[in-house]
């Protein structure tokens, strides 16, 4: 991953960097939401309010 980031950082194409930002950004946001989703889904249902 570090190598990929380094290659993109060295690249002259800012549009390429923006596209990489979009792919990584959306993937990261989804990945984090998946973790939160699983946290909520797997949370023990005992001890309700």
């Amino acid at each position: 991953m570090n190598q990929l980031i380094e290659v993109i950082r060295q690249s002259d194409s800012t549009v390429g960097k923006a596209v990489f930002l979009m792919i990584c950004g959306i993937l990261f946001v989804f990945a984090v939401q998946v973790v939160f989703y699983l946290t909520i889904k797997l949370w023990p249902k005992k001890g309700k309010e």
Partner: protein
Amino acid sequence: MEDLFIGFTALNWQSVIMMLIGGVLIWLAIAKEYEPTLLLTIGFGTILVNLPMAAVWEYEGAPGFLKILFESGIETELFPVLIFIAVGAMCDFGPMFKNPVMMFFGAAAQFGIFATIILAVFLGQHVSFLSDFADLKVAASIGIIGAADGPTSIFVATRFAPKYLGPISVAAYSYMALVPLIQPPVIRAITSKKERQMKMAVVKDESVPKSLRICFPIVVTVIAGIVAPISVPLIGALMFGNLVRECGVLERLSLAAQHELANLVTLLLGITIGSSMTADRFLNPQTLVILAMGLVAFVFDTAGGIFFAKFLNLFLKNKINPMVGAAGISAFPMSSRVIQRMATEADPNNFVIMQAVSANVSGQLGSVIAGGIVLALVPLLVFF
């Protein structure tokens, strides 16, 4: 004698236009009730800083009160962080806990941020007067308007493009208020009436474990801190406010954060943002393009959420009304209201408000996470 009339002689047409813009913002706040707490304060700050001599900013070498507030509250990123504590204390994640699948719309509807960044970079490379936008940091600050979240926009713009802080803040807050006008035409354009009439299964009204309400802000902070450490000032402050709200033993502090802190910081934040709207910074073609691109970001957000819902419907047995995807933006509760209103227009017996609120609350979380990820990734991709 000239000194006596220095106010008249120092007045120029650019300042007069800026004061008129300030007046328009105040009019929108009062007459149209578009985000009045922010637009009114920003509008008055704009008038103050464009008065001859701008003594509120600096006078005879001594800083005025707005410059002091700007340097101590905006440049240090203190005001947005304090606002986040207040927002966290106001946030009820209950609807999201009851219907967690809607969380994914809070992610999908951040598409506008990233699509607008690409568009900004593209324009920056092909339009000479927009050459600033070719800088990924500036483009990211413009794209973040699509977070539909004022403090996040301010936080990112302060760090990456302080020069454009004024127009970016105004765009973020204005379009949040204009969600009821922006979203319906986009939704109508990309959904059929049959899709808008789609009914969804009733959400079970289960109570949420108190332990989940308390632990969730801590879990979110730790995960965000590991995934994107630079995002912790934003997410940490938001979750701190939420923990104070949910812990059940700090009611006084929770109320103080929701009312006194929110009101005081909003008051100072608005007028200080207004002070960045000087004629030399605001009256240029770039400002108009930033305002237009903010609108584009909201359109892309809406479309992103809807197309993601349509995509999920290819696999789901219990179909999702695609309009609910559009509620994944952070503009709470306007967006969920818009979705319910449109569902009722399509079919008076269609109720999707619970699902829309869940997606909308998730959008509040998703926008801050997206902001944090932009803050973390952009410095890795550019040479400072």
